[in-house]
């Protein structure tokens, strides 16, 4: 597998609106090798691939710096079609197949083989008759190249997910002159046996001289099939190595390693915790939330602690809370201070003292066309019947109380606004987050759940929001459950962090656990720490 690299990207830098997402990254792939690209969410993997494919999103945001060479030749790829001409193909995570077409038609769509007719001589090749025989032969050939024994005239609609993925691969293989295939998280949607099969197919493809870029977060798969790998972290290249030279623990550690600034002294851990009392307990808890499935989770959270849920996107950490609040159908048992929640009753948790700040601030968390005041008091008024006065059959809003309370909250959380009547839609992200927080705090909950509290707000405001959470926890002894994609954030305030993988809790770790431990847990292979000695 020596020789000139099939793909070499050098010194790639990219910024989106002043936000540096890639810093001087190199990526080299040799012919016929499987090259793994690993990193956390937001490490820059997708951006790098978007650059490779010349996606419009790159060019409309000011292009990128650096060079791309294909087979030793410098190229500039302006759009995905040019990428295809250079022999680069992509196997998508979501299948781009037409369900009512047969496998042959799906493989050859857009590249049909035609036979000239009288009409097409006059009106051009669009009027050619399809040469179904030739198309079928090509499809058959492509399918057998990946060892798939399936009739090419079957419609795609009824196929199992794994087969759909294989058809997608066959389509890419069938393109003439294909040199490099990108697999974007291909095993994420597959069952275990299908995933194994896919890995075999990947090897078969590379045996035919086609190189593969394998994007994944499953480190065991990287170990199993990849020849070499590139690790990205926060848009920077951390390491390029041959797979046999690094252990899984090393990969995991390098994927995560980042400086953590602790906002709460570790010695103070569980300073207000009451380890005797369980605030929230989940037993065999499952949530059917599309893209965030929770599959039988068990966890106990103690009174007064700051408990974190971390893990990669799509693994189910967001699903937990949405199921708990009754926004998505949930099964299993959930107890709040020993009281069982009726999961089929909308918002039962709210009545039992749980308040919730949604991860989707603009979609779920706020009434954007209403005033700050209306937003802040809404939940308290609806759930606890406060800020109301009776007038005949009507329970009317008590404007005076509502205004006073809102002013208190604006002062407490330092919400920057023109007054309680300002519409929340015109506030900045950080201040919107504070309004959401104010709404939750107004309910005087015993358990406060915050999902992605710092998403989309600037760095200064991030720290303020986190400090507020710690203050609330310390002063009021409120139990706080925090869900975040940013591990650094969780490690800076939480007492314990549960890493969610595949809808279950992979491991509960202390915030000062090693980077390796976190990295492995996120990849769903915490067991291998013991196997490999677990040092980093």
């Amino acid at each position, binding site marked *: 597998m020596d020789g000139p690299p099939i793909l070499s990207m050098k010194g790639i830098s990219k910024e989106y609106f002043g936000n540096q997402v890639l810093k001087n990254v190199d990526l080299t792939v040799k012919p016929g090798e499987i090259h793994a690209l690993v990193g956390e969410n937001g490490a820059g993997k997708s951006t790098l691939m978007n650059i490779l494919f010349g996606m419009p999103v790159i060019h409309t945001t000011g292009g990128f710096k650096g060079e791309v060479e294909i087979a030793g030749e410098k190229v500039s790829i302006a759009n995905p079609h040019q990428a295809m001409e250079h022999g680069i193909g992509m196997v998508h995570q979501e299948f781009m197949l037409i369900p009512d077409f047969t496998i042959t038609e799906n493989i050859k769509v857009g590249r049909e083989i035609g036979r000239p007719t009288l009409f097409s001589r006059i009106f051009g090749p669009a009027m050619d008759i399809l040469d179904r025989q030739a198309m079928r032969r090509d499809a058959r050939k492509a399918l057998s190249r990946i060892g798939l024994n399936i009739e090419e005239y079957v419609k795609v609609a009824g196929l199992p997910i794994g087969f759909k993925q294989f058809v997608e691969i066959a389509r890419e293989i069938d393109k003439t002159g294909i040199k490099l295939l990108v697999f974007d998280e291909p095993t994420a949607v597959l069952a275990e046996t299908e995933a194994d099969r896919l890995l075999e197919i990947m090897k078969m493809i590379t045996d035919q001289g086609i190189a593969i870029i394998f994007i994944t977060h499953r480190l065991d798969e990287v170990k199993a099939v990849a020849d070499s790998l590139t690790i990205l972290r926060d848009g920077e290249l951390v390491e390029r190595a041959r797979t046999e030279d690094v252990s899984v623990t090393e990969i995991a550690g390098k994927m995560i390693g980042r400086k953590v600034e602790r906002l709460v002294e570790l010695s103070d851990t569980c300073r207000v915790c009451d380890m005797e009392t369980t605030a929230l307990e989940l037993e065999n808890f499952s949530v059917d939330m599309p893209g965030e499935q929770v599959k039988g989770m068990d966890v106990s959270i103690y009174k007064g602690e700051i408990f974190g849920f971390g893990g990669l996107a799509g693994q189910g950490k967001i699903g937990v809370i949405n199921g708990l*609040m*009754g*926004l998505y159908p949930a099964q299993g048992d959930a107890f709040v201070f020993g009281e069982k929640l009726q999961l089929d009753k*909308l*918002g*039962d948790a*709210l*009545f039992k003292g749980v308040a*919730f700040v*949604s991860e*989707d601030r603009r*979609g*779920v*968390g*706020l*009434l*954007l*066309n*209403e005033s700050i005041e*209306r937003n802040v008091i*809404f*939940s308290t*008024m*609806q*759930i606890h*019947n406060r800020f*109301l006065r009776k*007038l005949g059959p*009507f*329970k*009317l*809003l008590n404007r005076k109380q509502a205004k006073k309370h809102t002013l208190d909250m604006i002062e407490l959380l330092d919400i920057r606004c023109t007054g309680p009547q300002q519409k929340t*839609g*015109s506030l900045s992200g950080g201040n919107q987050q504070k309004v959401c927080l104010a709404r939750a705090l107004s309910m005087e909950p015993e358990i406060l759940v915050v999902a992605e509290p710092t998403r989309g707000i600037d760095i200064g405001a991030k720290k303020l929001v986190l400090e507020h959470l710690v203050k609330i926890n310390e002063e009021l002894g409120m139990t706080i459950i925090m869900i975040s994609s940013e591990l650094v954030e969780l490690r800076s305030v939480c007492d314990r962090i549960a890493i969610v993988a595949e809808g279950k809790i992979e491991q509960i770790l202390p915030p000062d656990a090693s980077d390796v431990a976190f990295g492995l847990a996120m990849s769903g292979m915490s067991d291998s720490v013991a196997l490999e000695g677990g040092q980093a």
Partner: protein
Amino acid sequence: MSRMRLFMQRVGWPRVIIGLFFVLLVVASPLLGLKLTDVVSDVLRRWALFGILVLAMVPGVQSGIGLNFGVSLGIVAGLIGATTSIELAYRMGGPARPWTELGIAFLVAIPVALIFGWAYGHLLNRVKGSEMTVSTYVGFSAVAFSKIYWAVLPVKSGTLIFPYGGEGMRNTISLEGTYGGLLSDPDVTANQPGILKWMAFRIGGVSIPIGTILLFLFVCFLVWLFLRSKSGIALSAAGENELFTRSNAIKVDSKRLQGTILSTVLGAVGIIIYGQVYGFLQLYAAPLYMGFACVAAVLIGGATTRRATIVNVIIGTLLFQGILTTSLPVIQRLVPQGSRLSEVVRPIVSNGIILYALSKTKGGNQIEK
């Protein structure tokens, strides 16, 4: 200058333009030989007459079902109440008791509207996303079904019965002698005892239907109170952000149901008041396009398909009905070609305003900043 611009922004261009047009028409009418007092009387009468029907749009929009084109359903319920009350009075015999008859009309119409609204609300909850299209069809089919009902009902009262067949109800039913003009016509109220005499009066030739105006404003006040109550605030939230509402343990569907029922009931009440002022009940095809007039009025008043307020209703009804009532006589004076022309111009004016109002709404993208 900037204050001027701020004012324009608050009021909105469509209202400024239509308002100026309206003022122009009113100013032009005496110059063309129309009596200004008559014009003003007409505008006031039409405003009071249509107000509650337009108000029926508010709970619908606020609860998220959009502009309720199906308000015809409520109108049919109101007409059922109104005609039932006349038939009952006839069967009971005795002297005319207009106030009792008006009361019975409401007593019958409101429960019918509750039932209609309940069924209609359930339907709308199943067609989320295309409520406005479905509600238009519901309005049309409600009118179509009601035609069968009017034609076959075994009424006995002479005012209701179809003169030639002797079966079913007639097209236009006069309310003279029952509750027609009870709260709006100075000639009718003059014969009423005590304070009821003051339900309508003339000042310098302008007749003021104060009873109807007060009733309209009172119903507006009730709806305003409701929208500021716990339940009403939840209803408004359901219309603005479904997920937000659900995350606060409020069932969005039942709030939408509530809004639809309220809208239907207001439609029923509205048509009875309409008949009371107008002096006639119009059955069969008459309610077919009333939904459009209500929608147009509230849109001109500044509502969108997602937000509507009481102020939108009051201003919108005045502008829409005002233009409609003043434009026709003015045009007739300008082009004196007999009454034919007005038949042509009337739909052009009313549909033109509807079109203009619809083109000025921003539809569903109000949620964005």
